[in-house]
């Protein structure tokens, strides 16, 4: 499914032969708070030759409601998501936890709604919804996306990407192929950062105790930026780094992968 191609500097990277029409699910959270991540996903996928569309009807997958117990309230959002993406060839999102909601919890939501038709539509849509890194590595077979990011980076695998979606080392494969990057391993990487959605507020003391240990590990790496595949965990980690004036930034994986060092949008994480 892949072939070799070269960029303007003569750098060779693998290029998918198959071009897809990709529907982006940016997520309400990224749409509102981290639009730069969404723009990076568009730049990256278009650079790889794919057609990208953003269905304007999309809002929220309902994860926060569902996981906090407001499951009846989440059902209309599940229906809405299915309505918006029903026709999509493939749905790609820069959030592992939102994809986890769709793939793993939508069936239970449809069951709670007592709506067999919704359950059927969920079953049809589920296998076409992917988190960005698993889509690139698993579906497109790409590891080198032609990115350039000359910084010391450490990667925090989010719990949902690791244990719910089981993306494995897909994000690390993508990062290892980035030119100029100094990728340092995060100690105790697989341990939760303590975000957990509304857990961060409802159990803020425990959340902070977990975050404290995560920060210690991040700082130990002497990385300039901490990278992850979900901006929600990053907002939590980054919020505390900023409060401590640690001088260490956070960046979404998509933004590193989109970076070529030539575009105005290239953000260096701080």
């Amino acid at each position, binding site marked *: 499914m892949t072939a070799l191609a070269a960029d303007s500097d003569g750098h060779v990277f693998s290029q998918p032969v198959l071009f897809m029409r990709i529907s982006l699910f940016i997520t309400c959270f990224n749409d509102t708070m981290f*639009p730069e991540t969404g723009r990076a996903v568009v730049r990256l996928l278009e650079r790889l030759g794919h057609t990208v569309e953003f269905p304007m009807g999309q809002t929220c997958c309902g994860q926060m409601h569902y996981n906090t117990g407001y499951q009846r309230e989440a059902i209309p959002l599940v229906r809405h998501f299915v309505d918006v993406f029903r026709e999509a060839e493939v749905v790609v999102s820069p959030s592992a936890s939102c994809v986890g909601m769709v793939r793993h919890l939508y069936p239970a939501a449809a069951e709670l709604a007592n709506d067999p038709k919704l359950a059927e539509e969920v079953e049809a849509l589920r296998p076409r919804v992917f988190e960005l890194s698993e889509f690139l590595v698993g579906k497109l077979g790409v590891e080198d996306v032609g990115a350039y990011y000359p910084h010391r980076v450490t990667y925090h695998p989010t719990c949902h990407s690791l244990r719910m979606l089981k993306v494995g080392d897909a994000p690390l494969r993508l990062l290892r192929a980035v030119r100029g990057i100094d990728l340092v391993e995060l100690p105790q990487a697989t341990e939760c950062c303590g975000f957990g959605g509304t857990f961060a507020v409802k159990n803020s003391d425990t959340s902070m105790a977990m975050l404290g240990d995560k920060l210690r590990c991040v700082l130990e790496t002497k990385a300039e930026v901490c990278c992850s595949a979900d901006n929600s965990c990053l907002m939590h980690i980054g919020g505390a780094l900023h409060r401590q004036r640690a001088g260490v930034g956070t960046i979404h994986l998509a933004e590193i992968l989109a970076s070529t060092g030539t575009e105005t949008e290239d953000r260096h994480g701080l």
Partner: protein
Amino acid sequence: MGSEGLPTAPPIPFQDAAKVSLANAQLRRNMGKATRTIRGKRELVVAEMPDWEGLREAGRAIKERTIRHLDRALIQLEASVQQAGGQVHWARDAEEARKIVADVAKSHDVKAVIKVKSLTTDEIGLNAELEAAGIEVTETDLAELIVQLAGDRSSHILVPAIHKNRSEIRELFREKLGAENLSDEPKELARVAREHLRKKFLTTTMAVSGANFAIAETGTVCVVESEGNGRMCLTLPNVLVSVMGIEKVIPEWNDLEVFMQLLPRSSTAERMNPYTSFWTGVTPGDGPQEFHLILLDNGRTRALADPHGRESLYCIRCSACLNICPVYERTGGHAYNSVYPGPIGAILTPLLVGEQNAPSLPYASSLCGACYEVCPVKINIPEILIHLRGKVVRHKQDQEGLRGRLDPEGLAMKLLAWTFREPGRFETAQRLGRIGQWPLVKNGTIEHLPGPVADWSAMRDLVPVPEQSFREWWRTRT
């Protein structure tokens, strides 16, 4: 918490109880060290098993099948135990179970009992009942003895005194067992406990145990342990009473093979545990001459009636989920206010007592999923936590009247859900957020949030809503 090991009304919410332990540096160090050590060892002994995933599947399948036909398995067990000379009692709740044990003790006029470490007897609050009846109770498991001497509560299902370190234990033994000049060497601590217990083993005529497994086919009861105190209790006294939850039954001898591989590796990180005792009814001239088996419900049929929560009854009490849980590691077990702490406790407790009586426990998790990964019978703890959160909220909305319906969190969630139902509303909300945040933004960051989200900014800054949303940008492209 009442006299029983399970909450009977909403106790102190987990998030408040946790504040106490989180601020205790000694406890954090004890817990961190202990859980890190045990989970590291578990990982090694699990990794050496080529068929671990197959074993987990098999363990789960046996439990699933048994729980589905629990009625038949229990009746078969009852008949087998009776045939082998044992007596079987059915206890609907903690009170009935306690009474049965106390009656057995009274019928023999015993003044003291020795106990094998048992969560089920802690669950029913047995010790307090027996002591009130003038019967001296001695816990014979070392950690359980430590907890008993300290007048403390267990904080771990396998290592009840995990929250205590050796110098704390030395002080306790000096005070309670009169062991002067004692050092904090584990060997010496164990010696003092052994001398104290040996006298009890040789003089006490009645023992109480729990059960890890009971085999319906043969009526054989099984206790798995490490110290040998269990073997003493199960063989020396004349009268033995075993209290087991009804979910502990398994159909056949052959099924044990699976659990005997799963349990020690998952719990103590051992390939094989030191002592596994089996007994079938009464054997004349050998061991206890009177045996009582109490089959305890105490909420288990309530859990069984919940199709999504049911699988929590597959639990074999290995404690792997406690040891891997980042929340449990930091809060310790007492914050859960239940004899069953940690991830399994956060689902089992509300399932046994009703979610309205333990409403904060399903929220005592970041849903990281580490517990599900290590569970030897593959209980999907994160999904059950989410399911129970739904039950907590629906109970609040449907059965707590106006107060439940006017709950500020509930109203905010409803408003948000309404907003997300229409992209136009969502976009308006985005704009309102951007405009409305100005009093909070100082030097490009938000350091103080108001009201219910104030806890976010207690220790974290927040980035402000940027000038242009993604959808606004997308519109400029096309």
